[in-house]
């Protein structure tokens, strides 16, 4: 789009170098942890005393729900950083986190629904936890829609950052919804006062899967950030030399 864009003020070269090294490592780690984690989740962990084998859905569901919230928090933090320090990479990171976070949110809702039908007896219940996570999904969609709708990407970054920061209020609501209200959804099992209420044999696959999800996020984020930066550089090269900034001359 332009010769001299604001994005030139950042130095993407160092980012490129680091990203090129980290990406394959993260991808491999995600694959490995995911494979081992799924093996444990499906074959090498006990069935629950109440839920039976349905408990195995948890190993996909819980990490997805955590990542849904983590991605939004990461988006809000990098939006704040982009807003305050005007670092273009922060804006790109926030932008590229959104679709990944939305995918995790969808996965959490979908697997939760699969679990809910046999266990609760309903695909869906409008309780505080489920509702607030659904709202999170729509917040992601709104954020992405705003980025798409604003043609000037410098402006889009600022406006989307404001929206991401405002929407962050939903994150504590999701986290504490099960404590504040009598909800159908069970309270926290892992991060709670008094230690996890999950048997250690079940924690192993859970933590392996969480590791896999985190590395998958890192790999996906780096790949899409590199894509975005390359696209911007291409657009810049296409217009190289067409416009130079004007300067002021006394007449």
């Amino acid at each position: 789009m332009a010769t001299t864009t604001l994005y030139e003020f950042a130095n993407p070269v160092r980012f490129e170098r680091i990203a090129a090294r980290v990406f394959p490592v993260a991808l491999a780690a995600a694959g490995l942890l995911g494979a081992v984690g799924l093996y444990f989740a499906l074959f090498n962990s006990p069935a629950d005393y109440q839920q039976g084998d349905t408990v195995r859905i948890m190993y996909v569901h819980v990490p997805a729900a955590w990542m849904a919230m983590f991605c939004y928090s990461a988006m809000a933090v990098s939006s704040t950083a982009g807003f305050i320090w005007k670092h273009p990479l922060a804006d790109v990171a926030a932008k590229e986190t959104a679709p990944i976070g939305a995918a995790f949110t969808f996965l959490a809702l979908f697997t939760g629904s699969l679990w809910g039908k046999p266990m609760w007896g309903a695909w869906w219940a409008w309780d505080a936890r489920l509702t607030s996570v659904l709202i999170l999904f729509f917040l992601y969609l709104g954020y992405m829609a705003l980025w798409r709708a604003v043609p000037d990407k410098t402006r889009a970054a600022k406006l989307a950052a404001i929206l991401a920061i405002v929407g962050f209020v939903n994150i504590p609501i999701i986290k504490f919804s099960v404590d504040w209200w009598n909800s159908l959804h069970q309270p926290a099992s892992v991060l709670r006062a008094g230690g996890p209420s999950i048997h250690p044999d079940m924690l192993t696959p859970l933590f392996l899967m969480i590791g896999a999800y985190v590395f998958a996020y890192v790999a996906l984020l780096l790949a899409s950030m590199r894509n975005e930066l390359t696209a911007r550089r291409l657009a810049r090269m296409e217009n190289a030399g067409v416009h130079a900034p004007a300067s002021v001359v006394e007449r």
Partner: protein
Amino acid sequence: MSPKKQQRLILFGGIFLAAAAAVALTLFALRGSITYFYTPSELAALGETPSSPIRLGGLVADGSVAYAKAETGDVVSFTIEDGGSDVRVHFAGLLPDLFREGQGVVVQGRMTGARVMTADNVLAKHDENYMPKEVADALKEQGVWKEDETGS
């Protein structure tokens, strides 16, 4: 003081007051607790029985589940208790997997008497404990098992 400084003072004073009021209102509301469901004790505390459909949550009392044949289909009846009060529930339909005595449930329906309800829907409420069956049995044998309370 310039007008903008004065306005900034007003703005931040207003924000502070609004924030304090919002926090106070939230604390008030959470003490009264907005609930996805009532417990039998809360229902008893209401005095009158609500006419509109409600949700009721609690533990299925031990030995209270009874099946009956009816012309319209099988009807299951059970008692929901929470230590303070109890409600007899009648339900014609499929029960979820997790439904069993001693387990938390949330039922949806209309009150048909002082402590009687006809449910349209029964949802099992899972707790935050996950463990293999053998462990649960062992804990029960050792007598360290504690039945958790729903709606806590």
